């Protein structure tokens, strides 16, 4: 009789536990990271009765957490990729919008500027055309500045994101370490798995992986060690490593990650980090830096080409032309660790030789060496760093002043800051040098059929450039200059004097003269304006292989392709992540229908067990009644 009662009671208790577990499943059906739990029932050992073993009821062995452990690593990796790609895609996409937008991009202002130059070339003395040119130059410079500003804003967003991410990471690693401790103490004291703590920890690890990208290994007593994708430990047992940020030695506004340890801080290379922090750092290295360099190259190329062409002409006042734009200079950043007093002065030789790769100049106590700032590969260095023989790297001339100590280093950015520096310095539209400094005229008394071609300026700095020069033919094959000398005349070959050059062709008669004189004030000559207007299709950049228009096209394409690749990758990763999550949830997720069915099942079993108690009771009552009578 007591056997039946005991069996019935064990069943009642077991089914209560089962229904409690089901209730817990239903309650946590929408809890992130919750894994479905299941009671594991086992028959109690039977009691030997001589004729055999009689069952004694049911036991709850454990409450099991349903997890597909095969997927844990994949989920962590997927979460890290999701974090990285979301950061990358978001920022790259907004930049692509900005760079290719017709009202925000550089293409339209650049085109307008050269169209305005064309208008000046057809109407060189029109103040309206000149004023409009100055306006479009202003607009072009402002657009360069605002795109650079946009890039810098993204860069500071990256930095804010990194700083905020570090705080999150530290909080998560601390929680994981605490959980590690709780899990190991609870599981060793009870011998049973603390399911909900395990769920919590898995969930925190996924969040951490989304933030920074981690791998895990299981340790003793159920604890979990967490490492960055680069292999640096973040959590070891119940110890969390403190993550911190350190300033870039060259650009203090930029921060990298480092781990604080007893022996000092260990710098984590930017490319060893994944997750959303890694994505942000990737935006900095693969979007912001190259875009700044490309944009700056176009800005510096434009400024130097337009300025030097404008200096080859004379303005409406009859003066030699000056700068239209301020000339951007390559930026120098001294390392914060420098101990010497050396300072570097940079300048750009020509637009075509200006490179885009940043480089580091380092002094070892006797010699300077250059290396690529991104790859660290050695870069060849010519010159000796004096003003007479400056170092030349990537088209940048560097002059060293002061004295450097061994180990001092400098970061040089040939073009990265140029788009922010460019500005219009010309304020008077009449200062645009549309006219050539000199003109040529054939004497009206000439009887030969020789005629002069276009004058071109070979050296605008020649002090005699605008001095009057008379070319007189002393025979059909010889000429004198200003009445002296005798030079051989070949039809069509250039005659170069005082920094200008002109080709005379045809057969001159003896005594024929050509006079070169200065173009004075208010000249409507447009030969220099024509050359200025042609600069957009001249191959100015990258060693004379790329025109400004092509450079603008490349900038648009490259920011677009970064964004579109990030977009594709994010879509693909989202699909994988969804698939993995679905797969994990087939094991761990709560299905309410299933719980309902189980609930019915256990409810019915519970009712049956209640009947056992009832029957045991009735049987006992029957027996009592029989004895009583």
């Amino acid at each position: 009789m007591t056997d039946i009662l005991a069996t019935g009671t064990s069943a009642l208790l077991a089914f209560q536990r089962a229904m409690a577990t089901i209730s817990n499943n239903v309650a946590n059906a929408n809890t992130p990271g919750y894994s479905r739990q299941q009671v594991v029932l086992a028959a109690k050992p039977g009691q030997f009765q001589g004729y055999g073993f009689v069952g004694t009821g049911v036991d709850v062995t454990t409450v099991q957490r349903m997890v597909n452990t095969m997927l844990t690593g994949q989920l962590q990796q997927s979460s890290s990729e999701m974090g990285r790609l979301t950061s990358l895609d978001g920022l790259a996409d907004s930049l692509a919008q900005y760079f290719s937008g017709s009202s925000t991009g550089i293409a339209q202002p650049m085109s307008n500027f050269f169209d305005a130059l064309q208008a000046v070339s057809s109407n060189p003395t029109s103040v309206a055309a000149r004023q409009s040119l100055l306006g479009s130059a202003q607009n072009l410079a402002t657009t360069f500045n605002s795109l650079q500003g946009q890039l810098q804003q993204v860069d500071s967003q990256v930095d804010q994101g990194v700083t905020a991410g570090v705080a999150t990471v530290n909080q998560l690693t601390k929680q994981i370490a605490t959980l590690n401790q709780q899990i190991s103490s609870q599981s060793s004291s009870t011998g049973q798995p603390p399911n909900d703590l395990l769920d919590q920890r898995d969930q925190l690890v996924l969040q951490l992986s989304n933030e920074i990208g981690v791998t895990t290994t299981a340790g003793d007593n159920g604890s979990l060690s967490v490492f960055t994708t680069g292999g640096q430990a973040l959590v070891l047992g119940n110890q969390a490593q403190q993550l911190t940020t350190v300033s870039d030695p060259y650009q203090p506004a930029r921060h990298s990650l480092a781990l604080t340890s007893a022996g000092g801080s260990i710098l984590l290379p930017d490319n060893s980090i994944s997750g959303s922090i890694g994505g942000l750092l990737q935006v900095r290295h693969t979007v912001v830096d190259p875009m700044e360099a490309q944009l700056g190259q176009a800005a510096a190329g434009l400024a130097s080409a337009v300025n030097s062409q404008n200096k080859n002409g004379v303005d409406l006042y009859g003066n030699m032309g000056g700068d239209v734009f301020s000339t951007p200079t390559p930026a120098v950043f001294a390392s914060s660790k420098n101990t010497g007093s050396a300072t570097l002065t940079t300048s750009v030789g020509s637009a075509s030789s200006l490179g885009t790769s940043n480089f580091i100049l380092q002094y070892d106590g006797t010699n300077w060496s250059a290396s690529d700032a991104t790859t660290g590969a050695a870069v060849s260095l010519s010159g000796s760093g004096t003003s007479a023989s400056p170092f030349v790297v990537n088209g940048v001339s560097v002059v060293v002043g002061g004295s450097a100590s061994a180990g001092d280093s400098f970061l040089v950015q040939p073009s990265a800051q140029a788009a922010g520096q460019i500005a219009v310095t010309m304020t008077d539209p009449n200062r645009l040098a549309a006219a050539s400094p000199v003109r040529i005229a054939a004497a009206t008394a000439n009887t030969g059929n020789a005629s002069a071609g276009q004058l071109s300026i070979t050296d605008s700095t020649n002090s005699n450039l605008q001095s009057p020069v008379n070319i007189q033919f002393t025979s059909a094959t010889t000429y004198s200059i200003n009445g002296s000398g005798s030079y051989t005349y070949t039809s069509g070959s250039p005659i170069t004097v005082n920094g200008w050059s002109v080709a005379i062709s045809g057969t001159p008669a003896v005594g024929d003269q050509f006079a070169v004189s200065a173009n004075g004030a208010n000249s409507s000559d447009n030969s220099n304006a024509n050359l200025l207007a042609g600069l957009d299709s001249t191959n100015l950049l990258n060693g004379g292989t790329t025109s400004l228009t092509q450079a603008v096209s490349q900038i648009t394409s490259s920011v677009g392709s970064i964004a579109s690749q990030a977009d594709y990758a994010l879509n693909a990763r989202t699909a994988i992540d969804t698939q993995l999550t679905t797969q994990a949830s087939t094991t761990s997720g709560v299905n309410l229908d299933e719980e309902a069915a189980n609930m019915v099942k256990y409810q019915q079993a519970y009712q049956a067990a209640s009947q056992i108690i009832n029957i045991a009771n009735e049987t006992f009552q029957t027996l009592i009644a029989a004895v009583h009578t």
Partner: protein
Amino acid sequence: MTDRISTATMYTQSLSSIMQGEAAVTRTQQQISSGKKWTSAADDPVGAGLAVLLDRANSQLTAFGNNASTVSNRLNLETNALSTVNTHITRIQELAIEASNDSQSATSRSAIVAELKQEYSSLVALANSSDGTGRYLFGGTTDATAPFSTTSSGVTYTGDQTQRQIEVGPNVSVGDSDSGSDVFQCIPTGNGSFAARASSANTGTAVVSSSSLDANTAYTGGTYSVTFDGAGNYQVLDASNNVVTGGTYTAGSTISFAGVNLTIGGQPAAGDSFSVKPAPSQDLFTTVQNLINTVGANPQTPAQTAAQRNGFFASIEDLQQISSHIDNVNAGVGARLNTLDETASSRSDQSTSLQNTLSNLQDVDFAQAASQLSLQSTALQAAQLSFQKVQSLSLFQLLK
């Protein structure tokens, strides 16, 4: 895939397919409303880069078009001015022929002189034509001030010889208005190859009545002089005073040497000479001024009459040269205007083709987009309906 699906997954999957549907519908709707397949380089990086180049090429064509209309305006002004110049020259030629008639008296010639002076100042005014924007048409690039000014010694030119080249198409430049020097100054004289002129010291009555190139011998540009001894003989000397040929002079007969045919009439005195020079250039105003001087000479002696006749001969020859020179310049202007028309049509062809390419690159095919939109909205509705069905399926609802 196992049969087990968690309830939360069911919801998130239904929800995410609805959200995807909504995103797709919104994207297509944006495409239709903007008319563009993409608005960011992220959607089509290569296309966006190409569009930058095409846009630039297109806007450059527009700039060339603006240049062309500026040049065209000035060239039309120039061609009008040149036609007017030639009308005046024609009138001057008529007056020259009229005045050269022996029946003219001193009085009637002075009336002609008055009209010629009028024509002269008209020509100066034409040479100082404005281009309508406050610059002078014939000043070269020194066109801020009037290029031609009248002084006691005639008309002087203060402009230059530079002719602006204006870009009106990719690698096509057209010359702007011609400089005053080219139009009014460097005009050949005589018959275009050489000019035969009487020496001002002549005392006889010899008059040149025609000068032409010999059909058989080429004139090589030498300078010669024909001198008379007064006894009926002539000699032709070259620049170094070597005798080229000589003979007996007969009034009204043709003297031929070195490709030159000269017909001289009248009676030369001893020592009278005529020079033959390769047509030197002379400015238009000097030619007209010479004519005015000739007409107003009022000869008193036979020698002076002969000098006047020689003057008429020279003026009529020179005016003919002016007329054909202005015609040539005008023909050049016409050719440039033609080039402008041709480049205008080639620009418009190029622009059309560029715009087609751009349109293929970035414009939405509305029919396709509209059908895509209806397909996507159908899919979205289906997803929403199925979500409604799925969410109503719960065993708990049946366990009442």
